[in-house]
């Protein structure tokens, strides 16, 4: 049978960011998929040699807007480890609060985009309407909706007063009720199930061997989440990774849905453990040596390798983002799919191309 090459992207209705896939088809079945990158590459790692280690916080926050807070958290943790300091307990708990609010709004954003990818526009609008409540919390507590810029080396620069804590808790009660009201639609609606169940299956072994990360890994039955490393304030919180075993688009969607509720729980736990205290410790000296630090972003494991030489400028900042890890598994599961399922499967990895290319 003759083969046809269909370009998918870089601009496509389901893609929030540009990535190109060359899809080789036989009839309407994908037999090969070749990703092409380079549309939003900014060379941010290279800036490490030109900006000092404090300025780099603003740079890493711009690797990806949606998980900006968690990028700077990972980076600051690495610098703190190099300088032999630890953020105060209150700062570590506040880091949990804002990082989980980020995960929550990221998952709601993705769930909406996912619904849109199979034409369920009212579900998309409902989810984004809920998400706005979280964006309001971010804006009111940090001054910004997306790039909240709360992390500094040694702690955080913003605090929550009693009234803000109460307001966040009250808002989360309503947000949780709103999310739960959509549970049966997201998990059981026949339209959703027909477009997601059994589609784009990544087996447990394949996910592990291909180096998948985050909900892509946990949706295939691997219980691995970097929050198990107990960074920030997670050492004092009850946390178990959310795992699904089907390995298909439905499983990945369900992991993110359940993680949204889990993030609400984690924010509550962290707020309950907030005690008066300092927001930051002073960092003395210059970063020297090399460290690897990892955190769990909404899309999965994020790894930073940092190398300092005792000056203001780091010698190397290497950022391995979760979408970068999930592109090889995506390229592996696309062959064999119907062309009509490609948009849904591509979106099911929650692609963040800004992260991937940096």
């Amino acid at each position, binding site marked *: 049978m003759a083969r046809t090459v269909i370009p998918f992207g870089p601009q496509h209705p389901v893609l929030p960011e540009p990535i190109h896939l060359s899809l080789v088809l036989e009839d309407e079945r994908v037999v090969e998929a*070749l990703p092409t*990158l*380079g549309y939003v*590459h900014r*060379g941010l*790692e*290279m800036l490490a*040699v*030109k900006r000092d280690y404090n300025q780099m916080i603003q740079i890493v926050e711009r690797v990806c807007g949606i998980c900006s807070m968690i990028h700077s958290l990972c980076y600051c943790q690495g610098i703190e*480890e*190099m300088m032999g300091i630890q953020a105060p307990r209150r700062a570590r708990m506040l880091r949990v609060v804002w990082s989980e609010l980020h995960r929550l709004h990221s998952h709601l954003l993705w769930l909406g985009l996912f619904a849109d990818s199979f034409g369920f526009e009212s579900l998309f609008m409902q989810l984004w309407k809920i998400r706005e409540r979280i964006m309001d919390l971010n804006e009111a507590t940090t001054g910004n909706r997306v790039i909240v810029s709360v992390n500094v080396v040694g702690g955080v620069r913003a605090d929550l007063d009693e009234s803000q804590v109460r307001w966040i808790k009250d808002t989360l009660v309503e947000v949780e009720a709103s999310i739960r009201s959509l549970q049966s639609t997201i998990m059981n609606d026949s339209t959703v199930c027909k477009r997601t169940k059994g589609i784009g299956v990544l087996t447990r072994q394949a996910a*592990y*061997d*291909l*180096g998948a990360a985050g909900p892509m890994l946990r949706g295939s039955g691997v219980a*691995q989440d*970097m929050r*198990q*490393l107990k960074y920030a304030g997670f050492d004092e919180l009850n946390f178990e990774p959310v795992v699904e075993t089907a390995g298909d688009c439905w499983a990945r969607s369900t992991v993110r849905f359940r993680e949204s509720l889990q993030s609400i729980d984690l924010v509550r736990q962290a707020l309950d453990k907030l005690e008066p205290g300092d927001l930051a410790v002073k960092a003395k000296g210059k970063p*020297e*040596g*090399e*460290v*690897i630090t*990892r955190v769990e972003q909404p899309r999965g*494991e994020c*790894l930073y*390798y940092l*190398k300092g030489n005792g000056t203001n400028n780091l*010698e*190397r900042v*290497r950022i*391995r983002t979760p979408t*970068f*890890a999930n*592109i*090889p*598994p995506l390229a*592996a599961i696309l062959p064999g799919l119907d062309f009509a399922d490609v948009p849904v499967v591509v979106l099911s990895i929650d692609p963040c191309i800004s992260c991937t*290319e940096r």
Partner: protein
Amino acid sequence: MSIEALTVAPADLLAEATRLKNDGYRFVTMTSVELDQTNMEILYHFDKDLVLKNLRVAVEKGGKLPSLSGLLFGAFLVENEIRDQYALTFDGLVLDYQGKLYAETAQTASSSPFCKYHVKAEPDAKPGNQPGTQPGNQPGTQPGTQPGTQPGTQEGK
């Protein structure tokens, strides 16, 4: 402070990666680190039960390493990235973008854009304020636009 890493010779890399894979390690990523004008090292990161195992492999700039992508398909993307940015090549790369993963035009050994020893820096210039002294401010010297077409901009530190 240094990370724990097992130093491995390039010739032993595949055997060591195979051993780690068979021991249940998951490939996480690779990190390229420029050491000086002629030397680099590549760190290979593997994970098992949230514990990282790192391999450290020394290589000369413009050199060649065996590709892990035949053993661990997930390595193809980062190996292509290192080829783009640091001009290292990988033997046996299963999906080889020929130095064009990010760029439309292939990078060459003399235009490895992420090597600081190939970036021209004026001693008195304030970074970012002197048009023409930074690769990003000079048309044709940005990674991927016209690599290697600006003689003099890719010389020593």
